[in-house]
């Protein structure tokens, strides 16, 4: 896994409906949680929609759907 840089594109900055491939996570704390549910570097990810009031990120990873918080979505680096 490559280390994340500030200039990297984050999942949180994608517009709704945009797709990408996960490259890395910003830190091991979030990373360890994400990999345990199957959100892995190399996974296909799509930001499906955002919940009201700027929270809740509905994402699809390798065909599975998850709800993330902004913090988690910010932590996912995509290419």
């Amino acid at each position: 896994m490559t280390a994340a840089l500030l200039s990297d594109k984050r999942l949180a900055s994608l517009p709704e409906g945009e797709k990408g491939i996960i490259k890395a996570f910003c830190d091991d704390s979030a990373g360890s949680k994400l990999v345990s549910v199957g959100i892995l570097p190399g996974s296909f990810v799509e930001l499906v929609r955002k919940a009201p009031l700027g929270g809740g990120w509905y994402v699809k990873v390798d065909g599975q759907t998850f709800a993330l918080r902004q913090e988690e979505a910010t932590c996912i680096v995509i290419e």
Partner: protein
Amino acid sequence: MKESPEKPVSYTIALLGNPNSGKSSLFNLLTGLRQKTGNFPGVTVDKKIGALPLDAGQQAVLIDFPGAYSLYPNAQDERIVVQTLLDVNSPNYPDAAIYVADTTKLEKHLLLFSQLKDLGIPLLLALNMADVVEEEGIEINTAQLERQLGAPVVLISGRSGAGLETLRTKLSELLAQPNPVPETKPFHTLQGVELKVAGVVKSVLAGVNDYQALLVAHHCQWLPFLSDHQRFVIGNAVAESGFQSLHLQVNETMRRYDRFTPIVRNNLRAPDTKTDGLTANLDRVLTNRFVGPIIFLSVMLLVFWSIFKWAETPMGWIESGIGALSETLKTALPAGWLTDLLTDGILAGLAGIIVFVPQIAILFLLISILEEVGYMARAAFLFDRLMQFFGLNGRSVVALISSGACAIPAIMSTRTIGNWKERLITIMVTPFISCSARLPVYIVLVGFVVADPESQALAFMGLYLLGIVGALVAALVFKLVLKTGESSFLLLELPPYRLPVLRNVGFTVWEKVKTFLLEAGKVILLLSIILWALASYSFPGKMGAAEAQARTEAISIAADSLTTEDLIAERQLEASFAGQLGKAIEPAFRPLGFDWKMSLGILSSFAAREVFVGTMSIIYGLKSKSDADAEAEDYPYLRERLQAETRNGEMVYNRATAASLLIFYVFAMMCMSTLAVVKRETKSWKWPIIQFVFMTGTAYVASLVVYQLLN
């Protein structure tokens, strides 16, 4: 394995798998009605166990573990799995495990399997969703999968029950093997610092293999079975050797995926046409940022409307049934204190809880359907941001809704919230939501505040809303007071929508109702007897004196015989132990507008709210023996009784008093069982005590304000 010469061999089998893998369905299918709920030692996480019939000569107990993604836990329920499977001396340590995986997501569902394999637990892999597999035309090379994963594989359906016979046979075979764990290459081979620290663990903890030792090192700070010495030695080794737990976890997990992903891809061929169109389409509407919350609120309104509407009829049956039973007993049994105790004490008290059964059953029915369908996860997604504002988590929504039925299962459901502060706040404020035990109190009293049915419906809604507002405001206060550096997260799987399996819903409802009846029943039975005795007896001579005094009074006002009877009963109640107790505490509640009878009702309610109606029935039922045809358990009857209650010519249950009582019941912490659960979940008396003081204090102040304003 527990072997003794005279008994046949009994095995302990663990049922493990990811959340949403269909584990509970399989458990219900395998054990049927032979299941019961217990607790894992030291925690309230439900442990469901059930007898599992196997081949002749083999007996097995199946333990349903909480769903977990990994042996690196993110929340309390996952920790249970870890601490049980790492402790070979635990009574729940399994002889073998059935691992349930969703075949359509096998690539993601084998992480925990690979970890369990490395722990050395004999495993049987149950590939769930056989029906979907067939529908979608997925091809599986079972034989090769068995070889490469090193475990027998069975295709099953938790929905239709297909494949269960094969599963039983294969499990029997697995248990009969002298050496059930085939020698395969571990999924994760320890390297460098891992080996070094694992070596230290092995030196202080006998009989663990490499991977067990590694996990003990990762979790040495919280594993409850470690001695202080072991924790100290392992902790030192971890600190000194540069063992970066999180980093190593990520690397290990990635290596595991690298190992089993090719195995899955080689043996499982799925056509490209994914049939998740329905879920995607539904979610386009249900999780829409504008429409979603409106739908959610409508669903909730519908749920609570149904509780009232559908429960009416069965509640009527129960009431008249118990009333008839009470009458039959009164006529059939000889008059005397035992009959009185049975009818006025025990039956009146029990009636107070049995009438809730329809409402509790309906609420749990609807909630478990919403859960089974997959909607609750969407609610958590929709409201996570709002909940964060109040210091809660999206998952708190599930707890807050469930507490509309009962705070106890609601508090237990918070174990899926990983962040301690968010979980604690949810636990602390959940009892503010009006549970079904408050309902009868509301039903009896609301008529004294507003008269016409429409206003009463509005008042009901107002009381519920007040509870919700109370919970949210309290959450805000706790959020500001409590400090934590722990990071919080949502990370919630949104499973595809599925039709609910009615068997699972049925089991949930049955289990909740049974628990409610047994737990609440015990308390209420005991309290009813105590209360009846207190209200019927006094110090020697006091009752006689009260009767004599009443007779004198009756003569002085030239009362007829019926009024005289009433007067005697009234004076005797005042003279009884209960009367004296009520009068002793009356001054504390006087500013809120409560007389000594209400104070007594409230005092008894601190055991459980639902006792209030029972207490009132007993107090007012005892007042007159002349109404032989009256059903003391009936709400309308009790309401009439309360209405007829006067002091100095004025109604005792006037608007201000009734409103004040209602407000008190909305906010006050009056449930010993809830406090006990909070104590177990938070592992200290501190939090239940704070909760009790906080809630009851709020209730006192709010009632005081309401009474003084209205009076």
